[in-house]
């Protein structure tokens, strides 16, 4: 049976409950929430005068009530050392979500650490060192001294290339401006580490170099543009699941025609209608089904391309709009360069594109018209271009990204209301670091260094490559082999003899071993190989700033205590830097030791003041106090001025027609098709029968680092799903829920079979990065020229392992698609 909490009553927040600003720490949308807390032992009443909402709670509340909270929004946590009731519920006054809660964010309270309700009991509470054959608790000083001493010795012997780092670079949980600055200061200022990678890719690089090199920063519009657009052109994104409340609160009103008044008011003098939407995706998604229900099927165009052929489609669309003159000549002349050359270089006929993409030529023509055909009276059509992992983690990332930006520029849709050419995003953003120029371009392919016995010490900050890297089968084998050498060495001498421990560790490193230090909030799969594990605080357990997909910056206020001895990452960095200073000084190298000064931060706000305030554009206007006062709406970066204590932001980038190039002009790019670009992909496609497409599910955030501890999520997805056409299942003699192995020459993984009649034959879709079956195991090591992985174009075989296990017997496999009554 379905998981049920059997909760039939919740405590009521009293009128004097404390209220803190919260931005959801999961996806990039960054929905606004409020945290209500009050001491255990008391509560408010149902009378309107007796509760925090001023509402009679003895009555049934209406739909969309601001005064209702689900059991998942409630917990009992520690706050300043005492137990408090905690309710984290969506904020109806936040412009981003207007009171909507996603199935992820509306579980923030329930996925908080509680020693009373025992939620997230798995959270790391103490520093740990590998001792006595297991990870054993110890003090911060003890753990950091070992990390510093081994790191110093490795760097002294191998140089800074001997230190390999994996670190978050984003906002939200496991990131934020405070923590990216701190880690950046340590590795890019005190040191010049270049063997560094990011949480979901094997190098230190942008996922959208292509757009940036054209002078077009990738988060250039505002969420309101989705309400103003004539057409939404969406590539490789399933926004109802992955940017849920952006879709529900800003796209749906436009698809439904509910934003027409806003369009007429803000954009007078041109005709307006409800939006049309084009979705480029090999797979039919719930986003498409919902769009059809809202806008009518006649206003939805699903371009189900052959996987990896986006670039050909975009070149054909670019060619078509140019040929028909559906371009913004004034904008092209004033704000761009290289248009004519790009038209020549990228010339692709609709028939050529139809052949390669598998689309009907008439659908490509229709898409071009929906994007760019002038409206009645000649007004320019406003089209918002939005893309995410289907493009970013797809074939030929750099060129494909550029070929899409070409269309947006040609049609004058950047910096204008109802436009934009934007990535939709995964995490929130929160990047503030000293220059990374020394990393170089292309950046080092860090996974290959780790696999090939390079480096001696690995610092990991909130990354779990065992779940979120490509070529994961080989990576895990190599990582375990190398770290086991060090574990065996550590086991060979008494744990309390520090000098002997360090000598043993360094001896193992000389034999190809790797000393692994893992900073995280929960035990991770890569952390099972670590020799030192350090417990971090997460959003809400520290003050934390980030920005969302429209550059909206907010402060999440600390509303509860971190577990045990856990600390904000920024303060872990500070203590590690101080320990490294001591280690270098003890080694007699005062000059190097002095590079680790400047970390005398007492709070995360100190790190914010040191980093964002001093280094980011407009940072001088931004303070914790001002952000606190601006609540869950915050402001849109960059800050440009103050109005009293109110920060003035920037609604859209490039509204003045000036782009991020030396001449201020956005440059068109030549983006010729070159087939499946990454090494090994075409051969894999030729050899194996099934496309193993992959991506996210609404219910699961990131690699399920918290959700793997959620009863609701574990009950729903005990195993990752593999969606597959029923006829393919019949050929493979599979029934729903069966356990299968997905395999190819890169490795193997497991999944649970989910029949999907709307799937295309031999095109499966697997949940990405799930703990109980890692899709990355079957992804080849091929990358693009800038070391961007290609997760999406993977092909493999499928075979049955076992009939549906008991853990999936209660599940449903009915269609996820919404259909009107």
């Amino acid at each position, binding site marked *: *049976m*379905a*998981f*049920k*909490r*059997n*909760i*039939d*009553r*919740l405590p*009521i927040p009293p009128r004097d409950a404390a209220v803190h600003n919260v931005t959801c720490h999961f996806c990039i949308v960054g929905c606004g929430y409020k945290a209500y807390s009050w001491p255990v032992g008391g509560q408010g009443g*149902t009378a309107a005068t007796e509760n925090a909402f001023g509402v009679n*709670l*003895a*009555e*049934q*509340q*209406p*739909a*969309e*009530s601001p005064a*209702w909270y*689900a*059991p*998942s*929004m409630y917990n009992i946590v520690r706050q300043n050392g005492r137990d408090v009731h905690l309710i984290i519920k969506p904020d109806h006054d936040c412009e981003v979500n207007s009171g*909507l*809660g*996603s*199935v992820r964010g*509306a*579980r923030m309270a*329930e996925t908080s650490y509680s020693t009373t309700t025992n939620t997230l009991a798995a959270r790391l509470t103490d520093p740990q060192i590998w001792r006595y054959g297991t990870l054993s608790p110890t003090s911060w000083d003890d753990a950091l001294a070992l990390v510093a001493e081994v790191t110093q010795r490795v760097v002294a012997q191998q140089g800074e290339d001997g230190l390999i780092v994996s670190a978050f670079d984003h906002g939200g949980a496991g990131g934020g401006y405070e923590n990216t600055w701190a880690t950046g200061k340590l590795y890019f200022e005190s040191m010049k580490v270049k063997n560094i990678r990011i949480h979901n890719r094997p190098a230190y690089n942008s996922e959208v170099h292509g757009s940036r090199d054209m002078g077009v920063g990738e988060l250039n519009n505002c969420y309101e543009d989705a309400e103003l657009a004539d057409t939404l052109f969406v590539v490789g994104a399933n926004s*109802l699941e992955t940017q*849920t409340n952006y879709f*529900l609160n800003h796209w749906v009103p436009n698809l439904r025609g509910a934003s027409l008044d806003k369009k007429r008011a803000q954009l007078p003098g041109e005709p307006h209608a409800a939006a049309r939407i084009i979705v480029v995706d090999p797979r039919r998604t*719930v986003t498409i*089904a*919902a769009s059809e*229900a809202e806008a009518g099927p006649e206003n939805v165009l699903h371009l189900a391309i052959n996987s990896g052929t986006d670039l050909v489609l975009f070149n054909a669309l670019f060619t078509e709009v140019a040929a028909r003159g559906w371009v913004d000549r004034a904008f092209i002349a004033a704000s761009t360069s290289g248009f004519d050359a790009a038209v020549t270089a990228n010339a692709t006929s609709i028939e050529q594109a139809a052949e390669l993409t598998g689309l009907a030529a008439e659908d490509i023509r229709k898409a071009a018209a929906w994007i760019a055909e002038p409206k009645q009276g000649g007004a320019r059509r406003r089209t918002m271009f939005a893309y995410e992992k289907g493009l970013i983690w797809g074939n030929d990332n750099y060129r494909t990204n550029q070929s899409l930006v070409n269309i947006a520029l040609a049609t004058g849709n950047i910096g204008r209301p109802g436009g934009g050419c934007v990535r939709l995003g995964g995490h929130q953003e929160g990047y503030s670091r000293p220059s990374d120029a020394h990393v170089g371009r292309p950046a080092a392919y860090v996974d290959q260094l780790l696999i090939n016995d390079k480096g001696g010490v690995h610092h990991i900050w909130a990354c779990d490559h065992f779940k979120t890297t490509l070529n994961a089968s080989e990576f895990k084998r190599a990582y375990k082999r190398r770290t086991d050498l060090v574990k065996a060495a550590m086991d060979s001498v008494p744990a309390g003899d520090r000098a002997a421990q360090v000598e043993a560790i360094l001896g193992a490193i000389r034999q190809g071993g790797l000393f692994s230090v893992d900073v995280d909030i929960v035990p991770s799969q890569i952390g099972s190989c670590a020799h030192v594990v350090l417990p971090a605080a997460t959003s809400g357990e520290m003050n934390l700033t980030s920005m969302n997909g429209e550059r909206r910056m907010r402060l999440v206020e600390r509303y509860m205590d971190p577990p045990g001895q856990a600390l904000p990452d920024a303060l872990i960095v500070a203590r590690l830097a101080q320990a490294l200073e001591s280690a270098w000084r003890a080694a007699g190298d005062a000059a190097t030791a002095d590079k680790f000064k400047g970390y005398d931060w007492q709070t995360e706000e100190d790190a914010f003041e040191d980093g964002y305030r001093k280094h980011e554009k407009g940072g001088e206007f931004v303070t914790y106090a001002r952000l606190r006062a601006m609540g869950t709406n915050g402001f849109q970066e960059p800050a440009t001025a103050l109005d009293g204590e109110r920060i003035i932001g920037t609604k859209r980038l490039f509204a003045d027609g000036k782009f991020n190039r030396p001449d201020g002009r956005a440059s068109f790019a030549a983006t010729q098709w070159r087939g499946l670009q990454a090494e090994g992909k075409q051969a894999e496609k030729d050899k194996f029968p099934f496309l193993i497409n992959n991506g996210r599910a*609404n219910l699961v955030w990131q690699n399920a680092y918290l959700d793997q501890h959620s009863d*609701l999520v574990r009950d*729903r997805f005990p195993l990752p799903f593999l969606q597959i056409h029923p006829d393919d299942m019949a050929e493979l003699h599979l029934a729903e829920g069966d356990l299968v192995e997905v395999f190819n020459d890169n490795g193997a993984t497991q999944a649970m079979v989910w029949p999907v009649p709307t799937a295309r034959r031999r095109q499966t879709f697997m949940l990405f990065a799930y703990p109980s079956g890692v899709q990355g195991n079957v992804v080849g090591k091929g990358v693009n020229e800038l070391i961007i992985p290609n997760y999406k174009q993977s092909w493999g075989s499928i075979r049955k392992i076992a009939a549906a296990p008991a853990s999936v017997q*209660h*599940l*449903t496999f*009915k*269609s*996820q698609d*919404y*259909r*009107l*009554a």
Partner: protein
Amino acid sequence: MAECDKLAEQGRRFFLSRGAVAAVGAAAVAGTIPAGAAEAAPAPARIAYPVARLANVADLQPNEPMPISYPDADSPGVVIRLGTPVEGGVGPDGDIVAFSTLCPHKGFPLFFRADDRSLTCPGHYSRFDCEKGGLQIWGQATANLAQFRLSIAANGDITAIGVDELIYGRVSNVLA
């Protein structure tokens, strides 16, 4: 299918008037109002639920939902005879179930789809499987659908005796 259509239509109306709706309760499905509510204490509930007659087995047609309300008139639901036995089903064929029809996400009224025996929300597209204890097929709700616990008398009377999740819009399933 008259009742089914009525539910669906109501869902559509709410959907279209989104934002302008003030009270779900006032527009709730007019169903069987619990009469002579006796106290019951079914484990593991922590509050006392009324025992309320919802319908008689003879009133139910296979796969046609009958609107009811429980634990009181402001909490709409459906009782359904699915036609095939399901886990948790009651009655002679083990196929009778009852659910709240307020979506646990935002309280929009769910509509029943006979073709796949699901309850679906017109507000934000959440879907729940009536054959799997209200398991969310897909959606925004952070809980599976509240199911009403049922008992069947010898004469075929179907009685609700409790609820297994918090009903949308309430701090307590039994209002006080």
